[in-house]
């Protein structure tokens, strides 16, 4: 097991080195900063962006949009998921809505969001639309797939319904959600940035990406992509850490 993990780590380092080598080779072969910037120019753009006084404001606005959209999706997914598990009518009403949300192209949603909402809310709405179906289905699964043996045990011991909901159903819902939190939040973050790129709010990562593109500053675009990747990684590690502390050490 240990040697397997070590081997995986080695492969991961090799793949990262390979990307860098490919980047160097491509930028040298193409030899055009607008089409494919070099590592050094991207690094300069990166340090320029990070040093700007507005940098923290920009990323914090994007983060706040991501978190607000995510929390709204989560709250609604939990409420509607619970209602769907109780009511057959709500369950069947939700099927076409979820099918629509999961199959409609992202760009169509962004365009609709731009028509309906102002540029501050449109990115949040886009993130919400993409993440809500994932969270809703996870909540529903957490309720419907609960181990029937535990439910029977609770019935035999005449455990009160409220205790059953509080101690079994809700923890099981959040246990299921905890497995998909990192990826769902990652998707939400990317969708919010996509929405920002088109709706152009004042402070936003997406707006800045678009701005760099307009100035044909491809190294700036690359630098922002690296910032997004780093932020996604931080999200992932933080959530995995919280998960490990709260859940994985027990189950």
């Amino acid at each position, binding site marked *: 097991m240990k040697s397997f993990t070590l081997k995986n780590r080695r492969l991961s380092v090799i793949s990262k080195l390979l990307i860098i080598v490919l980047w160097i080779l491509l930028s040298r072969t193409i030899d055009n900063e607008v089409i494919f910037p070099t590592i050094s120019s991207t690094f300069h753009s990166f340090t320029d962006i990070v040093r700007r006084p507005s940098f923290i404001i920009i990323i914090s606005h994007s983060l706040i949009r991501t978190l607000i959209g995510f929390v709204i999706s989560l709250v609604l997914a939990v409420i509607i998921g619970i209602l769907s598990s109780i009511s057959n009518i709500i369950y069947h009403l939700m099927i076409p809505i979820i099918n629509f949300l999961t199959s409609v192209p992202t760009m169509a949603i962004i365009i609709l969001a731009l028509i309906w909402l102002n540029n501050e809310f449109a990115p949040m709405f886009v993130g919400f639309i993409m993440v809500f179906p994932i969270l809703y289905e996870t909540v529903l699964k957490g309720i419907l797939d609960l181990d029937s043996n535990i439910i*029977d*045990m609770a*019935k*035999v011991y005449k*455990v009160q319904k409220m*205790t059953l909901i509080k*101690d079994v159903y809700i923890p*099981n819902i959040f246990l299921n959600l905890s497995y998909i939190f990192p990826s769902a939040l990652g998707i939400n973050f990317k969708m919010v940035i996509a929405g920002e790129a088109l709706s152009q709010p004042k402070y936003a990562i997406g707006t800045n990406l678009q701005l760099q593109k307009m100035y044909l500053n491809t190294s700036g675009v690359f630098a922002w992509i690296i910032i997004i990747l780093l932020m996604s990684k931080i999200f992932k590690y933080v959530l995995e850490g919280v998960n490990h502390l709260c*859940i994985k050490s*027990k189950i």
Partner: protein
Amino acid sequence: MYKIKNINKSYKDLKVLEDISIDFPKNKTICILGSSGCGKTTLLNILLGITNKDSGDIIGFEEDISVVFQEDRLIPWKNIKDNIKFVLKRKMEKEQIESIIDEYFELVNLQEYKYYYPKNISGGMRQKINILRAFLYPSNILIMDEPFKSLDINSKEVLINFFKDLRIIENKTCIIVTHDIDEAIALGHKIVILTDKPTMVKRVIESEGIKDKTELRILIEEELIIKK
């Protein structure tokens, strides 16, 4: 005395239980012995109210019942103490729950496991907690469905002794369903032998009065093997 009288149960055309009548004397252990798949669990589910009977009478089983299932049925995200608290909440005050759990864990020498999570203890230990939970639940009747089935011989012996110790502390009417002759001999004051489908009561042995366990074994084996 708890009783079942002329219990019948069929699934469509398949007759599972036929005219089952058993007396369960208070504070005794009654072992219901039969081959695997003969309908023992159906009978237990009828007693627990999980399955409906077609006809017959059940007397005295309306009260609260403790159950030891084949599987431990512990909640994975709760520690051992909280798993037990979960079933006691409706029956007792908080302080009483705390004190009874502390008292019993000390009596059976399991204090160190109180804050362990189910995944961190062995299968045998989990089944011990399953049994302890059933004893701690305030009831006069304890029903056990093949509680030692999935255990190895050593763990089985440990658990049988654990059960016997708990029975001394907390005297309940215990109904144990099993296909294992050794378990029935070790635990039963009364052994009810069932036939294969349709399941009927073949013989009732008042094993408490038989001191010679070899004689008891021969009696049971005659019913289970020779007259099959």
